[in-house]
């Protein structure tokens, strides 16, 4: 008998909870408030989504663009081979500045040049 009463009370609690939960939803029904905005006029559509006018030619990006980029890279590599300046390239006071630790980056400038040298040696 006691177990049946407990069962009924539990059921009532669940039903009450559901009622409380569902009640405020009626007040904040976003879809109902913005009902007009879901059916946009063609003028408003064109204003909000200019892509629908097809300004952009998407077809150009995929195949032709990659082949063009390959040609560009080939040209740039041929025209600008890697050249590292010798020490004579810098003036005397600039050579001191190369080792200056008060530099905005983490390391002095000479660190980055030497890093570049190592890279080129490895690729050759």
């Amino acid at each position, binding site marked *: 008998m006691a177990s049946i009463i407990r069962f009924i009370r539990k059921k009532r609690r669940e039903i009450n909870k559901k009622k409380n939960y569902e009640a405020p939803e009626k007040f904040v029904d976003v879809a109902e408030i913005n009902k007009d905005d879901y059916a946009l006029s063609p003028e408003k559509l064109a204003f909000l989504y200019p892509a629908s006018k097809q*300004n*952009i*030619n*998407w077809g*150009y*990006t995929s195949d032709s*663009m990659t082949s*063009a*980029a390959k*040609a*560009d*890279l080939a*040209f*740039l590599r041929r*025209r*600008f081979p890697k*050249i590292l*300046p010798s020490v004579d*390239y*810098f*003036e005397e*006071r*600039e050579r*001191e*500045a*190369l080792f*200056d630790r008060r*530099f*905005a*980056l983490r390391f002095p*400038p000479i660190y980055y040049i030497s890093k570049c040298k190592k890279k080129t040696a490895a690729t050759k």
Partner: protein
Amino acid sequence: MIYGGDKFGNPPQHYNRYHITVLNDVDLPEVLDEICTNLNGALQVHVDCFMSTLGDIDATDELTNETIKVESCRIMYPNQVSHINETTEIVSRADISKLRAECAFDAFSSRLASHLRDDPFFQISNVRLNRILAYTINISCFPPGWLRK
């Protein structure tokens, strides 16, 4: 103005961008002309440079213990955003000739010096241009449909 995007959500600046650094012994307008005529697509060009600068710093004279101003040399690298040239988008031959005029040595260095002079950060330490070490040319290539003027 360049606008548009990839269908995967990439902004156009991520497309085919080349960073070229050349030493100062080259003829910059000639190099720019060569690049602009040979690369494909609508180009956006940003030219900047590595440079050495002179500034006045405080130091103590060892004999008299007085504070004196000493000239010091530093090396400055180009800002990620800044560019010296005014015409950035290359569409026609006229744009290239404009760019050539802006990147001629005198015009370029004077504009660079004015950048330094007008910067409030460098006005305090009186930083001035010593010489240009290397030019950096950042070029992004866009599909022509993305460019609107």
